[in-house]
């Protein structure tokens, strides 16, 4: 169980922002942090990891106080048992894949875990390669495996998949889910991608201007439980065209663009760039093999 209540003045783009975040996360939950960039998602997680010191507040993890401004407790990052995967992967360029994993071993830890993780993440062929020769997806797998070496209870993922293409993302999302279950983790994910959040997480916190503005179980959060739709996809509005009595909205879903007929009144609420849910209820969709 993580309970976090932190305050900090941050100098961000466009002036100062005051970050005030209170949240609690249950054991073995998969939680996502959602919101525009600069909202304070990464800063919140950096405070949890001890890389950024809050001005005031308390962080308690599994009954252990990691930070308490009143009692002047501030555990160093080294003392916080937490696996951290960075957006830029932070693989050590001077070490091979295997050495990167070995570096993460704690004192006297059995090396067996390295071989298990190399098998688990399918890194066998890459073990003697240096990070510079790896693709983005491969680096990501190594970073994930490395974060798991000291067997943390908590895994923090700071936009780990944002630099990857759609196919690679889907593959790595599977790995994330697998790891989350296999190692009985509490996982915290920063993501912009609604599809990714819906697929992976149990709970969502939305941050805006340094505050948690909305939170809830993932399905409720995105209103997915309201539609008993037969099928549904989320996408982005690319174009809204006016016809005689109706509007045509083009929506980007994955790599496909679909055109949907929409009532003008509804179309007025939509803007180009909005995230929308496309669902069908009345008719059974046709599935055709490609």
């Amino acid at each position: 169980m993580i309970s976090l209540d932190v305050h900090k003045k941050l100098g961000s783009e466009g002036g100062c922002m005051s970050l005030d975040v209170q949240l609690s996360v249950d054991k073995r939950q998969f939680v996502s942090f959602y919101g525009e960039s600069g909202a304070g998602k990464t800063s919140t997680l950096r405070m949890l990891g001890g890389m950024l010191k809050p001005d005031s507040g308390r962080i308690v993890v599994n009954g252990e106080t990691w930070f308490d401004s009143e009692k002047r407790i501030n555990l160093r990052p080294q003392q916080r048992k937490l696996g951290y995967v960075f957006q830029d992967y932070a693989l050590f360029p001077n070490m091979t894949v295997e050495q990167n994993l070995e570096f993460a071993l704690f004192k006297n830890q059995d090396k067996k875990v390295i071989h298990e993780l190399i098998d688990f993440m399918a890194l066998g062929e890459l073990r003697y390669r240096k990070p510079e020769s790896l693709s983005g997806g491969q680096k990501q797998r190594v970073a994930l495996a490395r974060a798991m070496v000291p067997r943390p209870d908590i895994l923090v993922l700071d936009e780990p998949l944002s630099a990857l293409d759609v196919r690679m993302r889907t593959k790595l999302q599977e790995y994330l889910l697998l790891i989350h279950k296999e190692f009985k983790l509490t996982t915290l994910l920063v993501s912009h991608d609604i599809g990714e959040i819906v697929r992976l997480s149990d709970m969502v916190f939305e941050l805006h201007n340094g505050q948690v503005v909305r939170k809830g179980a993932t399905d409720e959060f995105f209103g997915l439980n309201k539609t008993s739709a037969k099928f549904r996809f989320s996408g982005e509005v690319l174009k809204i065209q006016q016809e005689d009595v109706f509007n045509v909205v083009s929506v980007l879903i994955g790599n496909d663009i679909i055109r949907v007929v929409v009532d003008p009144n509804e179309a007025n609420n939509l803007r180009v760039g909005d995230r929308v849910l496309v669902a069908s209820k009345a008719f059974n969709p046709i599935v055709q093999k490609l």
Partner: protein
Amino acid sequence: MDWEPLVLTFKLALITTAILLVVAIPIANWLAHSRSKLKPVVETLVSMPLVLPPTVLGFYMLVAFSPENAFGGWLNQHLGIKLIFSFGGLVVASVIYSLPFMVQPIQAGLSSLATTLREASYSMGKSKITTLFKVLLPNIKPSLLTGVVLSFAHTVGEFGVVLMIGGNMPGKTKVASIAIYDEVEALNYGAANSYSLILFAITFAILLLVYMANGGYLKRLNR
């Protein structure tokens, strides 16, 4: 030709560089990562030898190390160390004089590394020392090489400080640059030329090697 000044020069440069490497790494590391208000002051002090005439530095060290004065007298009485007109004094002076040449490349190298490398290492429970030696320094080898070579070459070329604090004592403080000056004063141009040519050739070779190594030429030759 007397080889002693040349041997002395390279002995001085070698010892100075070795000491500087040990001294400069913690300073550079602190400067690269600290947000202390003292940082600009320390940065300025480290860089002073770049702009100050060597004679100024030499003069103050001469005064400070003199057994007549408090600090020099204390060193002499309690530790039996006499720093003026001795090889030990030259080493101390050279370390201070060449400090920026070692600190600045290492500091620049460390600053250019992504902070996430450090943070990743810390999050794995590794201490600052382990992180510095296993993660940070191995990834700034070109900067380390640059620092080592610049300090070495700069110490070889040192003149003013040595003259002020070391004087011109054969076998103790008469380094090559002093020897050249000495020979010229005695109108002994032949000997001055020999020293000069050797210094020129060696310095050229060392610098060439660094630029080739840092530019990746040596790696390409190996393939």
